[in-house]
């Protein structure tokens, strides 16, 4: 572009210094990211919509929650799986997120959908699914819409505030739902032995999916507090003293 040529030639603002922090995504990447975030915002609105529709048509327990997965299954799988692209974005450097952290977060969600909910009917019909869907939907709608605005150089304080405040309630609810779902999958996993390798075999290795699920549940104990307090810390940093700046925005 003309402006870039002027900059490169040492025009009005001078040549870019080599030590400048990363300039952000180029125009092509930016367009792609805006598209991606809009699509995912819409996707999670869709998840919310089908879930609410189900609840309105089946207001009595247990069907009010036991059938919710059936209604939301397809949209949930499509839009949660698409989140894998976020790892690619981080790896390519077009978003400032840490690759390892993003991989970890995406993997845990994808694992819950495909490794816990998809294979086990007992997990699908449990109350835990509703808690997950509720928590995840609201969180993701706020998150993806916030990113969309940010990419268009608007940072609505309302969205930012919601993002860094709702988690206080949504995060524990989501985690409760996840743990309930995994717990319901334990018994059928022990019986059906999916993804399991038993001895003897030529690799001299064994893997029991049932025990793996138990280990996952236990791992929430050290990991959840760390992630939660990281968000608390972020909140203090971003909106803690930010009330004054918000007026300027």
């Amino acid at each position, binding site marked *: 572009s003309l402006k870039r040529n002027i900059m490169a030639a040492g025009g009005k603002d001078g040549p870019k210094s080599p030590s400048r922090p990363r300039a952000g995504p180029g125009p092509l990447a930016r367009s792609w990211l805006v598209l991606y975030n809009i699509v995912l915002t819409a996707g999670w609105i869709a998840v919310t919509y089908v879930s609410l529709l189900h609840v309105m048509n089946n207001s009595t327990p247990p069907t009010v929650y036991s059938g919710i997965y059936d209604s939301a299954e397809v949209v949930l799988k499509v839009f949660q799986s698409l989140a894998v692209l976020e790892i690619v974005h981080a790896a390519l450097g077009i978003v400032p997120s840490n690759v390892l952290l993003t991989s970890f977060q995406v993997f845990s969600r994808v694992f819950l959908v495909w490794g816990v909910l998809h294979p086990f009917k007992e997990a699908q019909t449990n109350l835990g699914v509703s808690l997950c869907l509720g928590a995840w939907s609201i969180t993701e709608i706020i998150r993806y819409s916030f990113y969309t605005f940010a990419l268009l150089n608007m940072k609505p304080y309302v969205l930012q505030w919601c993002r860094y405040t709702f988690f206080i309630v949504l995060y524990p609810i989501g985690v409760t739902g996840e743990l309930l779902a995994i717990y319901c999958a334990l018994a059928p996993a022990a019986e059906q032995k999916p993804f399991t390798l038993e*001895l*003897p*075999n*030529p*690799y*001299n*290795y*064994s893997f029991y999916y049932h025990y793996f699920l138990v280990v996952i549940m236990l791992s929430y104990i050290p990991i959840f507090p760390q992630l939660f307090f990281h968000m608390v810390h972020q909140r203090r940093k971003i909106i803690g003293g930010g009330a004054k700046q918000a007026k300027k925005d």
Partner: protein
Amino acid sequence: VQGCQSDDHRITSRMEIEILHARTGKQLICLDHVDNYSTVLDLKKWIHKEFPKYHPVRQSLRLEPKGRSLSDEETVHSLELKPSGRKLYLRDLGPQIGWRTVFLVEYSGPIAAYMLFYLRPAFIYGVTKAKMEPVVHIACACWMFHYVKRLLETLFVHRFSHGTMPIRNLFKNCSYYWGFAAFVAYYINHPLYTRPMYDHLLEYPALAGFVINELGNLSIHLALMDLRPPGTKKRSIPYPTGNPFTALFSLVSCPNYTYEVGSWICFTIMTQCFPALLFTVAGFYQMAVWAAGKHRNYLREFSNYPKSRKPIVPFLF
């Protein structure tokens, strides 16, 4: 010096040095009566006297809060502190533990753990009459040989550049060694263990490879020991000696790591055990990182360092 009119006041004058905390910038102590011949180690000892908690080995003194750690042998004179601002920053490295101690604890675990599984206790495997394949006995011998060799090298061969490491490393390292030992030993000694395909056609060559790599690794350690005079911290470029195993020095900076990875590859082939493969890969990754660091240090320290050498894998990396 008494009564002598010294032109060079620097040599005879006493001075004060302020010691500040590297993280907070607060003054810890002002050392007076320091002279130009005092060494960094002397300063550390004086600080230790005032603050018993700060044993000299856990002190890192630097000219800047985030600067390079000054070595114990440097004198105050060589630091060239300006009279206007004689201050040094102290960073607490945390509780330290000797390298030798760490190695002895680290390596005893795998020996004990493997032995435990080798004995096939009922509380782990249940009661079983399954016989042990010959390769299982050989694997045990190899494993024991490897770790006993490491213990003996720690006691009699290795000369360490640093005396100590942070104590937190002990827990991290022991988890790694003991954890993997249990993981590998559990499956190799399992009653349902399966021999490698092609049986002894694979087992014996792999065993031979293991022994060759162990001897290679030992040769390198002995060569490195001879390179450094006892009690010194002297560093020099290693070159091949009379021992044919040391020829690998022409190709890599850290042939001891190359041989070590070779040993574990052979062990993995010999036992055809996936956990052993994971252990080999993990070890290779860690050693590659260390080799890259050592290689970089060699290049930085010696301008005549042979350019054709790679850190750990000949010709490649």
